[in-house]
Structure formats: C-alpha cells, structure tokens
C-alpha cells in the first residue's frame, strides 16, 4: 500500500485505488482537438466535432459512476 498522505504517520492511510485511472480516459479523449476537429462522420446532420464531445459527457458520467460504485467500499 503506497503512502499517499505524508503529514503524520498516524491514523488511516488515504486510499488509492487503481479505479481512479479510469478518469484519465476522459481527459485524454477531449484534450486532443485535432482528433475530433472534423465534420465527418456526421450523425443526424450533426458534425463529428459536436456529437463526439457530447458523447463523452455521457461516457464520462458512466465512468464516474463506475468509479463511485467500485470505490465506495
């Protein structure tokens, strides 16, 4: 168990969970504009640039929910 909190060695350790790494996915997905800066493939008349980012709102929420349930021990 890695020591994350270094103020004093007493009491509970901060709980690190590998589940938190899931969060990195949504950061990477939206922080690289060249990847999604295009009109095609469009969907229902909406350019890729727009529906891709909206989709990541939903995926991000799902990932957060997953992390929540996985870590609320």
């Amino acid at each position: 168990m890695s020591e994350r909190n270094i103020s004093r060695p007493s009491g509970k350790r901060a709980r690190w969970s590998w589940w938190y790494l899931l969060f990195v996915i949504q950061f990477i997905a939206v922080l690289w504009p060249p990847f999604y800066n295009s009109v095609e493939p469009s969907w229902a008349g909406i350019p890729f640039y727009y529906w891709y980012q909206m989709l990541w709102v939903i995926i991000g929420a799902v990932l957060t929910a997953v992390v929540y349930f996985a870590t609320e021990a």
Partner: protein
Amino acid sequence: MQDVNWTALIIFVALFGFITWLGFAAAQWRKGDLDLLHEWGLGGRRFGTIITWFLVGGDLYTAYTFIAVPALAFGAGAIAFFAVPYTIMIYPILFLVFPRLWNVCHKHNYITPADFVRGRFGNRWLALAVTITGIVATMPYIALQLVGIQVVIAGLGISGTGYAADLPLIIAFVILAAFTYSSGLRAPASIAIVKDILIYVTAFAAVIVVPIELGGFGKIFAAVPPAKLLLAVPGANTTGSYSVYATLALGSALALFLYPHSITGILSASSGHAIRRNAAMLPGYSFMLGLLALVGFFAIAAGVGGLPEYAASFKQFGNNFAVPALFLHSFPSWFVGIAFAAIGIGALVPAAIMSIAAANLYTRNIHREFINKNPTDREEAQMAKWVSLIVKLGALIFILFVPTQFAIYLQLLGGILIIQTLPSVMLGVYTRWFNDWALLIGWATGTLAGSWMFVAANLTPNYPLAFAGYTFPGYTALYTVILNLVVAIVLTPLFKAMAGEPVDATVASDYLA
C-alpha cells in the same frame, strides 16, 4: 412601454413572485439557528445528495453561462464548445479532491477555503492571499449575473431611458438582498430547485422545438459559416486554436471549484458521499450546457441577428442578446415568460450564493482574523449578513454605472486569479509537503504574471506563449498556475531547510470519511 410583451411579463412576474416567497419561506426549511454562521452561510450542512445536486448545479450553471455560452457560439462558433470538455473534466476533479476538503472542513468547522489553508499551513498571510483572491474573483461574477437579468428584462420589452429602465433590475436586487439576508444559503438552495426545473424545461423545449421549426440539424449546421463550424486549423509553427481550446477547457476545469461559491455549495453538503454521488450525476448539467452552445447556432440559423425588431437590443447587449432573441422569435409569449424567468431566476441563485461565499470569507478570514478575534456566534452571522448585502450593492452599482464590457474583462481576469489558489487548496488536501511561504510566493508569482499577461494580450485571457520559434497560444490561467507550482516546488526545499517544524492543525485521518 408600448413594446412590452405583456403575456410574457405576467408569467415572468408570477414566477418571480413565487420564488420570492420561497426565498423567505426557506428560512423555516430544515430549521436551524440562523444566528450561527454555519447555519446562515452553509445551510447547516444538511443538504443531501439531491438538494446538493440542485444547489451545486444552480451554482455552476449561472444566468451568465446561459447567456454567454450561446453568445460565444453565435459570435465565434466552434470555440464556444470548450464548455463541454471543460465540464467533462470537472467531475473527476470534484470526485477526487472535494470529499477530502469536505471531511476536514466538517471536522474543524472550517467554513471557507481560507479557513482550511489557515489550519493546514498555519500561515495567516497565505490564508489572506486566498481570501482576497476569492473576494476579488467573485465580485465581477456577481455583477455579470445582474447583466443576465438586464438582458431578459430588455427582451420582455421593458425599455426606456434613465432610471425607469433600471427599476426592474433594482427590484430584482432588492428581492435577492432581502431573502439572502433572512434565510442565508437555504434561500438559493430552495430556489435552485425551481430554477433548475425551469431551465431544464426551457433547454429541452429549445432543443426540440427550435430544430423542428428550422428544419432539422442538417439545415442548422449548414447555416453556420464554414469558418465558424469547426476550429480553425493552426498555421505553421503554431498550435493555434487547438491549444487555445484544450487549455481553456482544462484551465477552466481546474479553476471552477476554487471559486468561493463553488466551495460553499460543496461544503453545504451533508457528507463526502453526497459529493461523490453528485460527481456522477452533475454531468446531466454538462449535457445541457452542450445543448446550450448549440442554441447559439440555432440563433444563427434563425437569422435573428438580422431581424429589425431586435436590432436595438443587439446594439445594446451585443451577442448576449442572441438567446433572448431566439426565444422571442421561436416561442409563444407564455413560454417566453417561463424561459426568461428561468434565466432571471438563474441569475439570482448564483448571485445569492456568491455573495454569501464572499461574506463568509470576509467574516472569517479578514474580520475574525485581523479585527475582532473573538466574535460571538451572533456577531459573526450578523457581520456576514451585512457584508453579503454590501457586496451585492457594490455589484449593482457597478452594473448600473460601469460599462458591461469592463465587468466581463474583470471576470475573465478573475479566472486567472482564482486558479492561483490551486496549490494551497487542491494540493493542500492531499499533502503538507509544500512550505507555506513557498506557496505564498508561488501565488504572488502566478497572480502578477497572470495579470501582466492579461494586459499584454489586450485584456483577453489567452496568451501567445512563444518559445524557440513556435507559438503556443493558450489560456493564461493554465500557464500561470504551472509557473506558480514550479516556483512553489523549487522554493519549498529551500525554505524547509530554514524553517522549523511545519505547523498543521489537521491530521491525515481528518481527510477521510
């Protein structure tokens, strides 16, 4: 007054009347002694998951957001969508950092982020820096909420010169001031529920009805000039709009929860669990924000910018009139009343919370720290109530007498300033490694550099960082917080060698549930 849209106005006033009553009635809700600062200023920390969802959402998605994001899409196009990745990134931050802050603040009865910094690092000057930054960043934000109200009042057709035109705004202000004074945070919490319902109804109606009227999304996007439809591809030797977009999103995400009103909303939750659950549920608001940015495009497609009946208002408010114009153009009058009430009420909620947050900061971290060290509970709460009133009055005077553009500049600068509290507050909940003086110098460096870069970039928040023949235009806030951190990291070992034992009123277990 012959242009007044009476149907819309009656509904608008009726809804406003309802929430005014609600704001006062809220004092009785989950009753507590409002002469205690944490009851007035944090609602007694009794708000469970659902109420927290409404409050934090009501906090984050302000009237200014609803006017300004579509206005940016209307005027500048694709770059306005940075609001979507920005909100995608805030939830992991909320999830990881803020339950810890909640736990330690609950344990030690800290009401403000400066209280926490004072306890964690034992340095009253660092805490003062956090306090002043918080107050300075919040004030223009309150002023801009009042602009949101001004825009919808103009949309209702209430015009005129001089004080007649200002009267509705003053009335709204008086209502806001009165129920905040009497009920504290419970007022905006209760009203946030009504507001969010109205906003959701309005947003969904807008996203369903308007596209049908305009002939579908294909037609709407076709009406957007190609140059605005996507981000401009960067030229040679520059990362251009790509780095602006990414840094705006990331920097805004980091800065958001450092604002005092965000922290107030979070600290009023009943537990760290409520916060974590919200991190999963609040994205509902993000989706709506994305839809709102698209509303800016609907306004382009509907051609409201060119219609003569809105010309005067566009002249007065610029692109900020895009959303009211679109609603007036696309909806029957009764729905316009609901939509405008949603926006107007949507200004009161964050304005109330912001003024409470600023008042809490002054009361705890300036007045109690430096002036009257042993106030009674009653004195403390009373001081906060007065300060909240003064803060709102200041914002009102500002909006009435100073050009709106100035308020916008100050709010943009505010984002650059508030992010400088990131090392002390967000990293402070994880580690005591930093030296307090190093943090203070880091804060000062970031603040000065940020202000300088803001001015150098002609009062805009994006700075063209040039390096080895390449340019990396990006959000000043992000660049300067990195500088701030580097300074703090470099100076910490140096100062630790000279300093004594680090002071820390908290222990590791305080941060855990």
